[in-house]
């Protein structure tokens, strides 16, 4: 029995030399989702602390691959492109950075950071992909946002934000650049809406 096993192993090793595995087609590129601004200061700083909850995302967007779509209702990952970190997590950080810089609230902190908050911002990544059906294509970002008052767990306002930006080239680089601009639009709108909603004007 032992002798037969050794024989099979040797035969396999000899045959493996005849087989050639395919090499990667091109190197994997990591793209960084950025928010170039501009940063517009809020008209007035609201008293209280805003806690930003990490953005919910469906399983498709929890991977680090950018997503594209060639036909309606389908989504596919770019194979040789990666985000530097999952897009929902990155978008959460970008939103928090923008709100802090705009001084819309006294304090802006992540949920679970040990800070007691007066308001809480919940966001959900609904869609974030490169529509490549018509080259060079368009980047689309849809985010749903809710503002909650934590003292009485009351929903103050809810809104859907949509950002669109045309891609410059029909490839991953053009797609990720356009997706960054779409994210910039959504963050602009969100930073403008949030203080109004908290002040009771955006309902």
């Amino acid at each position, binding site marked *: 029995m032992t002798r037969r096993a050794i024989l099979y192993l040797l035969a396999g090793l000899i045959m493996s030399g005849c087989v050639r595995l395919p090499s990667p087609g091109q190197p994997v590129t990591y793209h960084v989702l950025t928010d170039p601004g501009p940063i517009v200061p809020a008209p007035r700083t609201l008293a209280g602390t805003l806690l930003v909850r990490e953005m919910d*995302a469906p399983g498709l967007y*929890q991977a680090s691959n950018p997503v594209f779509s060639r036909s309606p209702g389908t989504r596919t990952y770019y*194979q040789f492109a990666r985000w530097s970190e999952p897009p929902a997590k990155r978008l959460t950080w970008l939103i928090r950075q923008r709100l802090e810089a705009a001084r819309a609230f006294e304090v802006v902190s992540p949920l679970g950071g040990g800070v007691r908050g007066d308001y809480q911002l919940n966001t959900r990544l609904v869609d974030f992909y490169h529509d490549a059906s018509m080259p060079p294509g368009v980047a689309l970002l849809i985010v749903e946002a809710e503002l909650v008052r934590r003292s009485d767990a009351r929903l103050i306002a809810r809104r859907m934000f949509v950002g669109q930006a045309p891609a410059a080239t029909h490839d*991953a680089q053009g797609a990720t650049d356009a997706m960054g601009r779409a994210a910039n639009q959504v963050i602009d709108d969100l930073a403008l809406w949030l203080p109004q909603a908290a002040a009771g004007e955006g309902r």
Partner: protein
Amino acid sequence: MESEARYVWVGATVVVLLLILAGGLYWLSGAADRLPTKRFVVYFQKQSLEGLQIGSPVRMQGIRVGRVADYTILPDQPGTVRVVLEVDRRTPVLEGIQAVIARNLLTGLAAVDLTNTGQSRVPLMRVPAGETDPVIEEGVADLSRVAELVEDLGRTGHESLKRLNSVLSDENQRALAGTLHNLNALSGALHASVPELNATLAASRQAAQTLQASGESFTSVVRDSGERLARVTDAATRTLAEADTTLQATRASLTRMERELTGIAVSLRLTADLAAQEVEATGQSLRQASEALQAAGRGLADPVRILYGPLREELGPGEVRP
């Protein structure tokens, strides 16, 4: 010639005599004394007009200023006589003037006396409807006032006599007699009760002395009680002061406990809030990790794709297979 001259003298004399006769008649008729007059009307209802006749004088303050020109007993108003007066125009007949009948007690002749009441200084000129001359109001004669006073006096005296009679009626006299009898009996009983009253007074005096002695004893008792009460009060004051101190200490302790409880409640609320945040964040991370594991599992389920890479159809825009 001589007879013609005599005729002239006779004629002239006759003419002169006739003129003198006419003048005398005019003087006798009183027309020379007549001055311009004004007519007034008086309706007399309350006074007797006995002795009044046409031509009777009309006087003001005792001076004759006119005469009675006419009078009429009104058939439709029994007891009312309409008298027309002619008064010298220079006489001040003013609004509110009154006319009364004044009668000479000896001759019985009557005259009309006019009296201005002084209420107005406006001459009486107004002529009422249905009249031809101004109407002077009828006044009350002084004699009438005296008669009314005498009549009132008699009426009051009569009333007083009637009341005196009722007071001195037989029934009241019997009641008065009964009262006097009772007073008599009472005085007799009092007289009989004098010894008893004296005994009562003596007993009262003794009782008063006893009461005085008791009062002195009571005073001493009260004095002792006061001293004891003062001691009790001192003790109670000390006890109250101690109780007050204890209460203050208790209040301070309660305040401190309340502060500490408030602090504990705040800490608990904060801890619960932070714990809830941690739980929520951890749950979210677990959920996402689970979904990521599922996605990875789906990718590992196809070893061919792991060994040979993605299919050509799975390549993104701009991506190429080797």
